[in-house]
């Protein structure tokens, strides 16, 4: 899941300053799960902005709120049309993808990001998330016992560990487990320690053209561009 964090209130207030009518737009999928932009956060932000406005006596914004099931699908965005007729700006609490999808759908509407999209991760405990995947596009988890060194090793090295770990912790952050020690231990458990003894050549990022596109449709013609 994509994990994000709501931007500080001060930053949001600065962004919306030039606009009068603001639609706060939540997202019902990842942003809901990571407490950054679901319906609850939308209404909390709405109230916080109103309070800030009442206390400061600045420009009077009018706020609206709405939450879509997902901002990253055009069909859901179609449901937005009637909501946007009377607004000057959309403050999207979707991830960076949501913000762009909304912008693409509404060419004449300024769209502002209300959250800082941070990483792809998993829940550690209620309200705490950890990064797990860098979306490198060339997954090597088979060789590393299901533990990603690119994301979880501070240095992102492919042939670890480095010379630094102390008592299983990373030399750059002693509160963090060394990913390569974890990989070693798990390979040992799985009786695959031979995988440790191999050398993995540096990865070549060059052939990955950005932005990437994936299609699951069979029969798509080769050579179709991104446009």
């Amino acid at each position, binding site marked *: 899941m994509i994990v994000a964090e709501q931007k*500080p*209130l*001060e930053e949001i207030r600065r962004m919306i300053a030039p606009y009068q009518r603001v639609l706060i737009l939540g997202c*019902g*999928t990842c942003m*809901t*799960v990571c*407490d950054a932009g*679901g*319906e*609850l*956060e939308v*209404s*909390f932000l709405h*109230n*916080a902005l*109103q*309070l*800030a406005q*009442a*206390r*400061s006596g600045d420009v009077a914004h009018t706020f609206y709120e709405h939450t879509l*099931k997902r901002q990253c699908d055009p069909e859901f965005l179609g449901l937005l049309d009637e909501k946007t007729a009377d607004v000057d700006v959309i403050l999207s609490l979707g991830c960076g993808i949501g913000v762009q999808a909304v912008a693409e759908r509404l060419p004449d509407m300024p769209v502002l990001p209300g959250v800082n999209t941070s990483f792809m991760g998993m*829940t550690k*405990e*209620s309200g705490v998330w950890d990064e797990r995947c860098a979306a490198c596009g060339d997954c090597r988890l088979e060789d590393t016992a299901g533990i990603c060194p690119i994301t979880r090793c501070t240095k992102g090295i492919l042939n670890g560990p480095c010379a630094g770990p102390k008592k299983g912790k990373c030399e750059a952050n002693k509160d963090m487990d060394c990913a390569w020690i974890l990989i070693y231990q798990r390979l040992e458990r799985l009786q695959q320690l031979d995988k440790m003894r191999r050398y993995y050549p540096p990865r070549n990022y060059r052939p990955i053209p950005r932005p990437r596109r994936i299609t699951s449709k069979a029969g798509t013609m080769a050579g179709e561009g991104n446009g």
Partner: protein
Amino acid sequence: MNVANQSYPENRSENASDHSLVPPCQDACPLHMDIREYVGLVSQGRIMEALQVIRTGNPFPSICAYVCTHPCEDACRRSQVDKPIAIRSLKRFAVEFGGDRMVRAEAETKHAEKVAIVGSGPAGLACAYYLKKLGYAVTVLEAHSELGGMLRVGIPQYRLPREVLNIEVQRLIRMGVEIRTDTRVVSLDLLFELGYKAIFITIGAHQSLRMGIEGEESPGVIDGATFLREVNLGLKPSLGKRVAVVGGGNVAIDAARTATRLGIKKVSILYRRSRAEMPADPKEVEQALEEGIDIIYLVTPTIIKRENKRLNVTCVRMELGEPDESGRQRPVPIKDSVFIEKFDTLIAAIGQAPQTPSDFGVRIGRGSTIQVDPSTLTTNRVGVFAGGDAVTGPATVTEALAAGRLAALRIDDYLQHRYPLPVKETKEKLGGDLLPKTIEMIKKIERVEPPNLAFEARAKDFETVELVYGWEQAINEARRCLRCGVGVEILFQDKCATCLTCLRVCPYHVPYLDVSGTIRIPADQCQACGICVAECPAKAIVLRKPFDRRQVTDELGHTIKSAAESKNKPLIIGFCCQYGLYGTGTLARLWRGAKAGVSIVPVLCVAKVEATHLLSAFKTGAEGVFVAGCGEQCARENTTYWVKQRVAKVRKVLGSIGLEPERLQVFALSSTAEDPAEELDKFVEQIGSLRLASVIKGEVKS
């Protein structure tokens, strides 16, 4: 449109968005009273409103408050945790402190049809009450000189003070019910000839069953119902020195305790089974033992011989054998265990049956009971209805009241030529037991019993034995209610992101993932704490009752509105829990406006105060906001913890817009503290000086 039926709970039109379920207590009550609701009101100290709820469901609540056999308590789910809620005692508290004796019942006659009610027991009186309210002319005909049936001539005064009964009777007379006492009805034809259009037969079950043993007719042998009737009607039967009561039901216990109160020192109860099988209420048995009554189990009399003005009673000892059709073990005589005891009087209290005059012309069925259609209470004769003990055999006061109410509704249908509406149960019942993992997390809170009259003081006269709760006792007892069936539901399943927050925050481990990966919140486990409602990031969860859903928002709205009307911005807004301290009145001074500028938003547990409510309070211009809960005394788990989380979140917002975070506080007020309001006073002072400082800086106008 059936206007008349609207005022009765069974037909109350239900709010479609009310998804609450019928709790087991209400389901077990023959009158179907809204127990959860009035117990909830008592726990907030809202006694008058509690009484109103009680009166909607019960024509004579003060009578039930003394003598109801409380099947509701037997069904109460709290007994799976520790002990059931003391529902009857709470009702007694509500009727006494809520001023039930002051309530005026009014009615006017608007129909031409007259109805006759034969018998003035609880069934007859309830029917008279409801028919009168429906606008009929009603006449109650009673064989005895006084009204009340078994309430008058059966139940002893120490359990039901006659003053309580008299108040109800007077209320009926004031409503315009016509009373004919000393009138034994022998034929119904005459009543029809007199112009009555419908007749309700409620003649009870007054014929004592016979023991079927030799010597039963001897002088000195009397049946329980007759004995109690004589005492209740003011006669003083002479009993001699030593009295035996045969039987194990409530009538036997009542007869024995009554004999004690007539000054008999040696009263023995002979019961043919053991204590475990005794149908009498265990509490009554306990009190009888306290009063010095001897209960001899597993014994039955077989022959009575009168000699020298005394009774030689031959008894035989019993043992328990195979279970009979009632499921209880059948007592069988033990060989060669015969013994003889001497008594002056033997009271046989082994049961009663109805005795219906044959000229009534109604069909009689099993156990001499009158046969009726259970949903309409109609007999085989047109226009003749029957209910109460006469139909069921000896039962209870509440069942008789329910029969009386049903009869009134059906007689109304009959007289207005309406097809009787089936009693519609629109709400689902809450079934299922609490799971061990839920029970484990529910706080155990000891049941508070009302005090009893000291037993030395009891046996001398007919003073009421059970006393009434004090204010604080009642509130603490009422707070134990688990509020079954008004918990939460995922109202918007499509909004649910299956984030699992609810599953993680619920203190009782209620939400779970089903095999298909859908989150479920089972109604029968939810403790209605409301924590997940405020934490669900998708706002998919709501409380089942619309009132509960809106409560905090609505109350905040009222506060803001009344502040706006008075043109005084509230200086401080406090979200205060209504259970506990406020209920007991300890903090009532805040209500009285003694603290100028403090507005209170009453909430039903602080766990239901959401972060946005706190922001909204500040939006009104309040300089300070606080949340005051009961801390350790809260009947639910983790409530303070969660409200503190939300407060921390709102404080961050305050900081980022230049307001001191200390303007928002959480207090856990305990009634055991010397001055629970001390912290609050300090806060009010502090906010006052913050405000003063900003006035000086010119930020706000004074």
